[in-house]
């Protein structure tokens, strides 16, 4: 069953800081504005300049939620993108070049006038030599003399002398060549360029448009139009936006009424706080850069006690410093929202790579029996809504709410429908206001039937209270009393029971696909997109699969999960960590055994193809763990089938 008329992937590789991000994001924006569905994700090193990074932009006229392992256009900004780093990083290569990922009939665009310091690319004298080296006669090669094109463009404007200063225009050249090959509407491309260069930078808009046109002309004059993968220009969708996870998280916080955000710089969480810093004047909240994550969380907990909506965002190493503060919030009943952008662990691990490795930590972060809520949204839309609700839950149940995101979700651009904020109502929970301000006697930790003790906002006359990280009595003073300890523990746990009853099922979990299926995939967090797309791909191949996405990890929807999985014919878990932490959680909470586990822990997210082949392998096996490794699935049969076959074009190449 065809869902779309095209489903194409554009890919760019190059040195960090070399324009990979700028050009990919420009293109993603152009496609999004044209009403197309976009999924754009980046891989990069923990390095400021120079190391290899690559960006994929998948575009389709039907919804796409993941990336695939193949590309229809590969733009190589340097030799490493084509040939990998295995010849100078012999022992532990990070990749072998991206040429193998280009589909039959696909295109490779590269700079035929590279800097001599790029020895690998500089050694390629012409297209024939490259073809010989890469051993691919089924792809089209587009050697573009970036230098000459830019000089030509500038000469027409009499600005040749600015050539060196305008090297950044290479981005425009490669974007221009790419949209020309795809047949993307040049008027739309121009509009995006003009939108990007506004105000003081408006002069650059004309220049960029001119470089685009020069590139189109160069392509027309020098290459036959053999590239067959075309984008169909659709109609703009007014309610569609292109958004990254960090932006969704930050805007969710703003919508929820964030008052104080504290943070300590850490990849990949920092972007959220930086975005919030940009918005703080407009919305009257404060972002504090703290001296470490321990300070961050304590600032947030105290601010929450003072009556503002407070939050802190971090990643694994910072999260590992915070348990003490989360316990503080839990026993003193502070409404705190904490975001952990997971990355490869343990310890410093892989700072810029993704992993879903902190689920068990988020559930069992600290000592003692504590109360908290753990939520793991699976895409930017869920991130926005869940973040909003997290603040309501924190206030209502007076306990910390941990939001589990990750590097993949944080940094990936996807098109979503603009979230609807009409029905989002702020609920500050039960607030105590004294009937008579002269009469003290307020009990901050009063034992109530629901477990919720109405909280006072400090500064209120007649509502002075105490609280302490020691076990305390209803008034908030230290108590080691036997009955009191029981009463306080019980009342705090009653709040969690209340949360379990009140948090809607459709937030806690979702079953996608047919109710009856040959296989039920369970997953969580950012793997959601790849699993959703894989379920569709599997259905196209005749395998009926459905997908149970778990989103609220505590309070865990035990009954519902047991009911759904109890009926499942076969269960396969798919997640980005070594031990299949969700599968373990399901086994801990239910009577269901999850033996078939597809895992990936090389720091890269699942692609659609990897989930497909992982699930198929898991089903063939008898319950062995299936390990997926990046770059080792895209050439196998499962993928070849999903790639449209086309005759190898006989391109006449211009030898340069």
């Amino acid at each position, binding site marked *: 069953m065809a869902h779309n008329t095209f489903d194409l992937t554009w890919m760019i590789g190059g040195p960090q800081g070399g324009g990979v991000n700028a050009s990919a*994001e420009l293109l*993603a*924006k152009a496609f*999004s*504005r044209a009403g197309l569905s976009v999924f754009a994700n980046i891989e990069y090193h923990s390095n400021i300049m120079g190391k290899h990074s690559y960006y994929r932009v998948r575009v389709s006229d039907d919804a796409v939620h993941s990336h695939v392992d193949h590309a229809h256009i590969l733009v190589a900004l340097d030799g490493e993108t084509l040939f990998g780093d295995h010849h100078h990083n012999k022992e532990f290569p990070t990749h072998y070049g991206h040429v193998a990922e280009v589909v039959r009939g696909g295109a490779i665009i590269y700079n035929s006038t590279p800097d001599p310091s790029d020895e690998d690319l500089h050694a390629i004298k012409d297209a024939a030599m490259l073809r010989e080296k890469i051993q691919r006669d089924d792809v089209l090669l587009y050697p573009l003399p970036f230098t000459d094109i830019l000089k030509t463009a500038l000469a027409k404007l009499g600005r040749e002398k600015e050539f060196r200063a305008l090297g950044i225009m290479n981005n425009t050249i490669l974007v221009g060549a790419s949209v020309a090959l795809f047949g993307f509407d040049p008027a739309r491309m121009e509009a995006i360029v003009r939108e990007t260069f506004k105000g003081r930078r408006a002069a650059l808009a004309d220049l960029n448009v001119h470089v685009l046109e020069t590139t189109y002309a160069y392509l027309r004059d020098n290459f036959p139009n053999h590239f067959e993968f075309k984008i169909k220009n659709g109609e703009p969708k007014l309610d569609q*936006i*292109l*958004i990254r996870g960090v932006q969704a998280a930050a*805007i969710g916080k*703003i*919508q*929820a*009424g*964030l*008052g*104080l955000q*504290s943070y300590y710089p850490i990849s990949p969480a920092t972007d959220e706080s930086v975005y919030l810093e940009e*918005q*703080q004047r407009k919305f*009257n*909240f*404060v972002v*504090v850069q*703290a*001296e*470490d994550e*321990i*300070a*961050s969380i*304590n*600032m947030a*907990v*105290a*601010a929450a*006690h*003072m*009556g*503002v909506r407070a939050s802190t965002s971090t990643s694994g190493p910072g999260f590992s410093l915070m348990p*003490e*503060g989360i316990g*503080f919030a839990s026993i*003193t009943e502070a409404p705190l929202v904490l975001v952990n952008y997971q990355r490869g662990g343990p310890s410093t691990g892989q700072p810029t790579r993704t992993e879903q490795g902190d689920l068990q930590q988020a559930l069992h972060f600290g000592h003692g029996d504590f109360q908290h809520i753990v939520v793991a949204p699976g895409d930017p839309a869920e991130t926005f809504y869940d973040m909003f609700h997290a603040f309501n839950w924190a206030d209502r149940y007076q306990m910390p709410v941990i939001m589990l995101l990750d590097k993949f979700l944080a940094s990936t651009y996807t098109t979503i429908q*603009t979230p609807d*904020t009409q029905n989002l*109502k702020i609920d500050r929970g039960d607030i105590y206001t004294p009937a008579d301000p002269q009469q003290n006697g307020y009990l901050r930790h009063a034992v109530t039937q629901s477990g919720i003790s109405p909280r006072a*906002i*400090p*500064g*209120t*006359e*007649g*509502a*002075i209270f*105490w*609280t*302490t*990280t020691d076990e305390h009595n209803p008034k*908030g*003073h*230290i108590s080691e009393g036997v009955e009191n300890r029981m009463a306080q523990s019980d009342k705090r746990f009653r709040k969690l029971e209340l949360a379990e009853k009140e948090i809607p099922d459709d937030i806690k979990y979702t079953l996608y696909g047919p109710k009856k299926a040959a296989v039920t995939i369970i997953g969580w967090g950012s793997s959601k997109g790849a699993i959703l797309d894989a379920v569709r791909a599997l259905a196209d191949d005749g395998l009926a699969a459905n997908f149970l996405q778990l989103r609220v990890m505590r309070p865990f929807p035990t009954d519902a999960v047991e009911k759904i999985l109890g009926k499942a014919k076969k269960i396969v878990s798919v997640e980005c960590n070594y031990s299949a932490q969700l599968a373990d959680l399901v086994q801990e909470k239910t009577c269901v055994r999850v033996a078939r586990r597809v895992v990936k822990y090389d720091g890269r997210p699942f692609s659609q193809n990897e989930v497909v082949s992982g699930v198929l392998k898991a089903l063939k096996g008898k319950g062995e763990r299936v390990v997926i490794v990046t770059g080792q699935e895209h050439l196998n049969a499962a993928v070849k089938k999903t790639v449209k076959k086309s005759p190898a074009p006989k391109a006449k190449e211009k030898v340069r």
Partner: protein
Amino acid sequence: MIKMAVVNSQPLKFKVADYKEDIWNDWCVGCGDFGIIAAIQIALANLQTPPHQVAVLSGIGCSGKTPHYINAYGFHTLHGRVLPSATGAKIANHKMTVIAVGGDGDGYGIGAGYFLNTGRRNLDFTYIVYNNGVYGLTKGQSSPTLARGLKTKSMPEAAIQDGVNPIAVALGAGYTFIARGYALDPKHLAGLIQQAIEHRGTALLDVLQTCPTYNDLYTKEWYSGDAGQKRIYKLEETGYDPVVRDTSNLDEIVAKKSQALMKSYEWGARIPIGVYYQAHAPTYDDALMERTPALREKSLAEMQIDNRDVAPLFRALG
């Protein structure tokens, strides 16, 4: 310098007793903490700050119990984290008087990183350190201020690392009010606390406090000095001028910090108490209000939050 709140001989609205929370106090008999808490309550009564506009935060240890004995919003937080907690509380509601208290182990040991960085911020609150040279609540181990070679009765072995000089560290960290008090002179201490609260910026008040149970070296008798000469003397009685008059004059700042540094190493036959250093510098609160003018009217806690329109943020995306 101390502004007494007695006006027109009218009866004071708040008496010292109004700042007392009447629960069982479990400090040891003769503990120096009693002097400090009395001084806090006297200072608050002198300032006539309504109890509900005061927040007292503490770390962990004997000193950590302070908020429970004061009638004000009280937060007994974590070991070593009282400064970030006080920072969060003050930013959330800068209209309240915020007082942070903790021991020397809490502030100069486990919380040393926060001690340093809080000085950089200069947020407007007061930090009182109960400095007694030992970890009392865990039964008398050496604390960060105990000097090398010393051994209290509770220590099996003498200390083999140096003690920290908190006033010297505070000078480097950037505290704009640095003072030292003596727990057994609550009247003088109350004056210092009052000055510290009135000071705009972060005020560090290191209080020499006796632990009669575990520190048999720094006792009431030791601080009283040998016959004939008192060990403790008051800086203000010697003509010492701690105040930087021109905060744009780096030479003056360095000169005033230098004399404070020299005084901070005066420890032995004579120990100075009083204000070591004071400068009126821009506060973190000022910077926040400049950035977000709405804070001049309302604290973050009072800000309306249910009327935000994020639609322009979505529109500005791709």
